[in-house]
């Protein structure tokens, strides 16, 4: 049984209001399902509180069919509807369902947009920051080392644990919504020192320096270690935020990697000994030329036709330096008439891209710069899309499966070229 402090007992018993009581009830059931002994305090929560498509609201029509009903019945898994007070914890809303301006281009209906706007108003009214991104750490929520967080979004979770040294499990919608009310999360997994030790070694023997190479290594890593914690050592070079972002997203998709160590690169891995918390253990994997080629071929196994009609960039949401790079690649070029190019980022980064002139260059080329969502989250692709191309291993993993389309994976330059010619010419050098 999970141990509760006096304050947590009071929360459970209704001393802090019915919504907090329902939140604690869910968190206690969750802690017991995990086998956690107690809770940690958290004041940094990232989730998707209460947002839902209309059909989910309709499902709870008998309970009012509104934000309050969905928050109570779905987010808090409560049998009764409760009033949701203003959230006091530092809480943010991650990615959402559509672009707030280009929703028509995404194929959304007026009704769906109205539902989206109504949910967003509720989120803001409840004191939750409207970041609307899978990269909160690029939009105003940057944890610090040792900070206990309760985050959703696998690519953000792996970034928080591995690159920053923050502490979060891969939380879900219901646990984050509950944590926003109770400021508690089960003290289990990545909140505990011993859980953060490396479990397998990956010896990297080919140069991994560009974002493309980091992404392939990430996809290999997840496939190799599944949900375990890898320690990577060897010829990994030129670390940068965007490379970690791409690596972690890929590793979290092909496996369930929620934390990784890179010796000499990530903060909890000054040495192999420190990364493992002792001698190396587990399995030993090698990432050499053969493995690199195999992972490239695996990522490109769902492509057949080279006539690309959709190129999607911005998974995870592009940073300002990625938008600068893609703008420089697009400057003076035009997206092919048989192709569409959609680039996704956060609202915060888009503001900077507007000010810096990148957004204009992107639009002049005939591409769309979109925020809030991505094709996989919104299940929105240009009409008639059959063959897509990506520079993200994560999006390559998900979108073709979700939409039943073909997909190619390559460098950002491969993708921009495909967008401007309508042909996929990517290959592994």
């Amino acid at each position: 049984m999970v141990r509760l402090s006096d304050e947590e007992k009071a929360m459970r018993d209704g001393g802090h209001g019915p919504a907090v009581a329902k939140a604690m009830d869910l968190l206690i059931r969750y802690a017991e399902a995990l086998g956690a002994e107690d809770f940690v305090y958290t004041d940094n929560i990232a989730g998707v509180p209460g947002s839902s498509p209309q059909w989910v609201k309709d499902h709870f029509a008998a309970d009012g069919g509104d934000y309050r009903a969905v928050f109570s019945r779905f987010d808090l898994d409560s049998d009764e509807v409760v009033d949701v007070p203003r959230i006091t914890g530092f809480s943010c809303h991650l990615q959402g369902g559509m672009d707030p301006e280009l929703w028509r281009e995404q194929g959304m209906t007026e009704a769906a947009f109205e539902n989206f706007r109504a949910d967003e108003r509720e989120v803001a009214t409840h004191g939750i920051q409207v970041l609307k991104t899978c990269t909160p750490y690029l939009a105003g929520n940057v944890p610090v080392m040792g900070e206990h967080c309760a985050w959703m979004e696998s690519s953000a979770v792996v970034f928080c644990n591995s690159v920053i040294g923050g502490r979060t499990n891969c939380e879900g919608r219901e646990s984050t919504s509950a944590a926003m009310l109770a400021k508690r999360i089960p003290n289990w997994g990545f909140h505990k020192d011993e859980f953060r030790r490396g479990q397998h070694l990956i010896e990297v023997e080919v140069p991994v320096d560009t974002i493309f190479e980091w992404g392939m290594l990430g996809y290999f890593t997840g496939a190799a270690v599944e949900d375990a914690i890898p320690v990577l050592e060897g010829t990994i070079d030129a670390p940068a935020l965007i490379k970690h972002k791409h690596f972690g997203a890929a590793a979290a998709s092909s496996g369930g990697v929620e934390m990784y160590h890179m010796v000499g690169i990530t903060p909890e891995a000054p040495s192999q000994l420190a990364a493992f918390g002792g001698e190396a253990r587990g399995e030993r994997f090698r990432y050499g030329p053969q493995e690199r080629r195999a992972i490239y071929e695996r990522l490109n196994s769902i492509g057949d036709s080279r006539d690309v009609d959709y190129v999607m960039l911005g998974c995870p949401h592009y940073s300002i330096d990625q938008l600068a790079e893609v703008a420089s690649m697009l400057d003076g070029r035009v997206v092919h008439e048989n192709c569409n190019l959609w680039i996704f980022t956060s609202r915060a980064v888009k503001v900077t891209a507007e000010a810096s002139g990148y957004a204009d260059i992107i639009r002049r080329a005939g591409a769309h710069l979109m925020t809030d969502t991505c094709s996989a989250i919104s299940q929105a692709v240009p009409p008639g899309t059959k063959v897509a191309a990506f520079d993200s291993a994560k999006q390559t993993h998900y979108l073709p499966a979700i939409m039943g389309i073909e997909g190619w994976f390559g460098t950002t330059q491969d993708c921009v070229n495909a967008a401007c010619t309508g042909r996929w010419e990517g290959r592994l050098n």
Partner: protein
Amino acid sequence: MATLAIKAPDVVIRGRKVVAGVVEGEALVTHQTISGWGGVNPMRGEIIETHHELRGQSFAGKILVFPGAKGSSGWSAMFHTTRLTGMAPIGMLYNITTTKAALGAVVMRVPTMTDLDLDPLEQISTGDWVRIDADAGVVSIWKGGRP
């Protein structure tokens, strides 16, 4: 659900309760971890992940036996949605405890167990009849289907 006392189970294994309750039904077994968001279609309760061995199969109304959860943090919400659409599994057994699988089981409110003393992936095949008594910590298995 009523206990089927017609025939003694072929195998009995014991473990830890994740979500309380008693249920019995047909097993759907995979040796591969399952992605929730992006890996299942919640309207059909169907696995859609590109390289998955269960691709195209539905777990609706089955007892899902799997190593563990992987992928997106939308795991719990996606499986929670199958509860809304009536396409949820009726019980689950898994080996690896993750926040995704634990939270998913909690919000689906289906009897679920883990930390079993014999590997359920070895003991149970697709089509076997399985009874989960999570409160007692006992899984009973009838090989080959309903006894």
